[in-house]
């Protein structure tokens, strides 16, 4: 073979290899740092993959799609906006984490009976503070509350308490009742008994003492907080607990069929007025109780849970600002 012939053959081979390598290189380059997540109903496997890694400060690119029905995607305890994940579509999301830790991503669209089980985790490492942050135990553990036990109200009002009426007697109230610590650690019915036993309030009628309880509960929340609580309640809770809190949501029958229990009825004074905010916080954080209640600990920030709790009590108390 002539030298020029070898050269030309080599040239052809090199050309072919070059052409073949272009798409491979593009594929490799574009795939760098992109995580593709497929959503499936929890019954058929949930998110795939359901655990991913990321670095603090390094943008995480996600491509989301669904293999069956409409899903949603959100990351708990972050302010990432909720996106829809539809079959046949790619949704691209870029997130940058500022703090290390374990984040939970979850489905935000009711995709099936076990929708809430559709969760995955993002392990975020690196960052300046590699030492684990001290975590304070939730209030229900500090108070040693048994969140699985029934919590009947020790006393119930004869008429619906109103924070507006209660505000008229607020001047008679010792400021120790208005603190956040008192509010969170006491159920409304305990607070009622405390106030009833208070000699400074002995001139008030029973309904007016209940109005004062409503006033204490109201003054520990903000209108914005209650509005946020209402929004989150509608999105996350009302499918079981009902849009009006009656425990009669569209899934209440199937919850009953599976667990023998109905979702909590927040319009029932005998039950809700026996629950302190700390107790409700425990139930929301941990879930369970043999009722099919999901655990929201990895999803909501503490303040968010307090907002939801503030809203839940409005099923019992009339608010000042409606």
């Amino acid at each position: 073979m002539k030298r020029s012939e070898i050269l030309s053959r080599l040239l052809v081979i090199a050309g072919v290899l070059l052409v073949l390598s272009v798409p491979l290189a593009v594929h490799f380059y574009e795939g760098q740092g992109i995580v593709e997540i497929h959503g499936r109903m929890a019954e058929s496997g949930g998110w795939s993959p359901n655990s991913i890694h990321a670095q603090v400060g390094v943008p995480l690119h996600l491509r989301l799609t669904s293999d069956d029905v409409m899903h949603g995607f959100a990351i708990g305890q972050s302010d990432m906006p909720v996106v829809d994940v539809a079959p046949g579509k790619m949704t691209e999301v870029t997130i940058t984490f500022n703090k290390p830790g374990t984040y939970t991503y979850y489905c935000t669209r009711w995709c099936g009976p076990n929708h809430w089980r559709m969760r995955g985790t993002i392990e975020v490492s690196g960052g300046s503070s590699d030492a684990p942050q001290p975590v304070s135990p939730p209030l229900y553990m500090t108070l040693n509350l048994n969140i699985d036990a029934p919590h009947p109200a020790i006393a119930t009002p004869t008429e619906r308490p109103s924070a507006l009426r209660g505000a008229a007697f607020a001047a008679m109230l010792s400021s120790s009742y208005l603190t956040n610590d008192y509010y969170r650690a006491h159920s409304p019915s305990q607070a009622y008994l405390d106030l009833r036993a208070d000699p400074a309030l002995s001139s008030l009628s029973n309904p007016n003492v209940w109005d004062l309880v409503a006033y204490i509960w109201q003054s520990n929340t903000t209108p914005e907080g209650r509005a946020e609580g209402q929004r989150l309640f509608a999105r996350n809770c009302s499918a079981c607990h009902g849009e009006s809190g009656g425990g009669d949501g569209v899934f209440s029958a199937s919850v009953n069929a599976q667990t023998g229990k109905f979702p909590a009825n927040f319009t029932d004074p005998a039950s809700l007025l026996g629950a302190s905010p700390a107790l409700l916080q425990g139930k929301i954080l941990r879930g369970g109780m043999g009722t099919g209640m999901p655990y929201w600990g990895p999803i909501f920030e503490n303040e968010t849970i307090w907002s939801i709790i503030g809203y839940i009590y409005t099923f019992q108390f009339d608010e000042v600002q409606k």
Partner: protein
Amino acid sequence: MKLSREQWFYIILAGLAGALIVFAPLPVRVAPPSQRTFRVEASQFAYSPAVLTVNPGDTVTIELVSTDVVHGLYVDGYGASVTADPGQTVSLTFIANEPGSFRFRCNVTCGALHPFMIGKLQVGTNTLLWRAVGLALLAAFSGVALFPRPATVKAV
């Protein structure tokens, strides 16, 4: 075949009658436009009720309640749509100013039989049906009247 004057007369008459059937306004009772609210329950894979009947010009409000997974409702012809998650009743309001029969369908992929999750919005009386019935009757009648059977050949 040569048509007699009489036959021409009948043909023209039938044509006029046909035009009347197609174009004449039907004596449909026209109700004044009103507010109408429907509570439609969506579940896999049907709407209940699946047929909504309204009068033209009505302001229609559809409250969509999902009882299992996230569903949508898209009204063909009107292009109005809404999405409902369980526990969050949503409503869709539009003015039914276009008479006719329209499909509404789920526009959120909700499961295997999602494409078959449909319903019907009926705006006004289905005049097309009655006009078609009238035309068919007219055609049958004039066929018999215009072209009677030829006289039977007498037996030899």
